[in-house]
């Protein structure tokens, strides 16, 4: 059975063009929720058209509960990310993952809402000596199960980041940043066909894409915005303090990418 796993974030959803639209429980966020459903449903329909028999959708934005269920394609299974279980339901039985609504990593120029994991406390995340964002984290996590990243939707900067991390990935740029908090976006209804056809193509030619692999053992490092966050992370078992704001951990399994940070 062909299964597809879809991780959903909000910053890179079509129609989302203001920072406040990503802040949960605000009126601006409520207005933007249907657009998440529209982008996700497009990806889901593309996956089913390409022969998928099961699609799991994971809500990974903030603390979750962003998907308006009444508007979501009823054929999918829904789940929520939890702490360092980035993709709880992923397994070797999936043919590929999509990231819908992606944003670029912290510190990317010309990117809408660039950040990595926590915009208040994380300044930079490094995996195996290279800077890594959430797209890379999800690709590496899925790679642990030999599952490749097949498609990404988001702003142009997120698409560039995905193409760097996973050559050959299908990338759908639905917007471009004007500054960090403002974007120029295509209309959510115009995004439907783009996303659906990219999703379908990516699943049809799945054999061309390699799963992301991390050589193990390796190192992961977080530079925090403030010393106090490093004070806390440095107390946990296995942490090594690199400098006032930076903490490093040995990485024995890709499933522990952000564990302890």
């Amino acid at each position, binding site marked *: 059975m062909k299964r597809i796993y879809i991780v959903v974030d909000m910053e890179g959803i079509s129609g989302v063009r203001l920072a406040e639209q990503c802040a949960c429980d605000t009126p601006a966020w409520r207005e933007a929720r249907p657009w998440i459903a529209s982008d996700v449903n497009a990806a889901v329909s593309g996956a089913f058209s390409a022969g998928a028999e099961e699609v799991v959708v994971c809500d990974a934005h903030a603390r979750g509960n962003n998907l308006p269920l009444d508007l979501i394609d009823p054929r999918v299974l829904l789940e929520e990310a939890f702490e360092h279980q980035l993709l709880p339901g992923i397994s070797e039985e999936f043919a590929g993952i999509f990231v819908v609504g992606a944003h670029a990593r912290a*510190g990317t*120029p*010309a990117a809408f809402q660039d950040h990595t994991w926590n915009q208040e406390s994380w300044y930079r995340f490094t995996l195996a000596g290279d800077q890594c964002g959430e797209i890379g984290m999800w690709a590496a996590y899925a790679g642990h199960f030999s599952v490749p990243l097949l498609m990404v939707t988001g702003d142009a900067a997120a698409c560039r980041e995905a193409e760097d991390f996973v050559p050959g990935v299908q990338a759908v740029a639905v917007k471009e940043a004007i500054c*960090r*908090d403002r974007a120029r976006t295509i209309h959510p209804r115009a995004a439907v066909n783009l996303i659906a056809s990219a999703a379908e193509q990516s699943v049809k030619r799945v054999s061309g894409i390699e799963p992301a692999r991390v050589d193990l053992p390796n190192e992961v490092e977080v530079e925090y*915005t403030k*010393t106090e966050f490093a004070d806390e992370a440095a107390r946990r078992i296995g942490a090594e*303090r690199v*400098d*006032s704001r930076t903490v490093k951990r040995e990485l024995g399994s890709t499933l522990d990418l952000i564990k302890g940070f």
Partner: protein
Amino acid sequence: MNVYIMTDMEGISGINREEQCKSESDEWRRSLPLMEAEFNAAIAGAATGGARRIVLNDAHGGGENIRLAEMDSRAEYERPLGGGNMMPALLDGKFEIGFHIGAHAMSGTQDAFLDHTQDSVNWHNYWVNGEKWGELAQFAAYMGHFDVPLVLVTGDEAACAEARALLGKDVETVAVKIGLGRRHARCLAPSVAHEKVQEAAARALRQKDRIKPFKVKLPAEVVVEFNSTSTADNVAALPGIERVDARTVKKIAQSARELVGW
């Protein structure tokens, strides 16, 4: 001899919780006597050491951190001019030496109580001519602009170490606490701290010639790295600012007055 006293709150003895430094909070209001007493200790020490005129600049959070009725009457009070002008109003009189009472270490210092530079939410790093600076170096440079040496620094142990690294080992320092991580500190009893601050202030006046005014090389390259790209977006939209990367901006300061602010 005329003495100019810059002040801050994070490095005052007895201050060991972040909430105490939040202006207008209950914790802050309860902490005012600690600040007043330590500022008064510095004023008394300066007076004992022979100061003729003493001006105290109440700089934490823009001022209003002490009740004037509680201030030693031998000093005059002022607060920062505001409106982006960070330079203390040293011009209005001739000063021979400066103090910095209640200092904290620069952003990114380990085991420093409430380490930050300028703004603990938005600023990640601050460099002048390639050297990483904190607020201490800014104050020293402001004073140096008027040929006033910064001769006494009090605060936590990390701020004192920063002062010695910047100004040389002859600068008088009084460590009234030691940072245990960013949010905790082990403090001297305030009465002991006040005694030490008063003694050091009197001693600093006697030894003032051992410290040279701190001069910044001009024009100076000022680089600020912010925590968020959003802040850099806003600052980069102002005149004279060059964008270095997503979170970093640069400008050229022609005078010590331009070291901070846009």
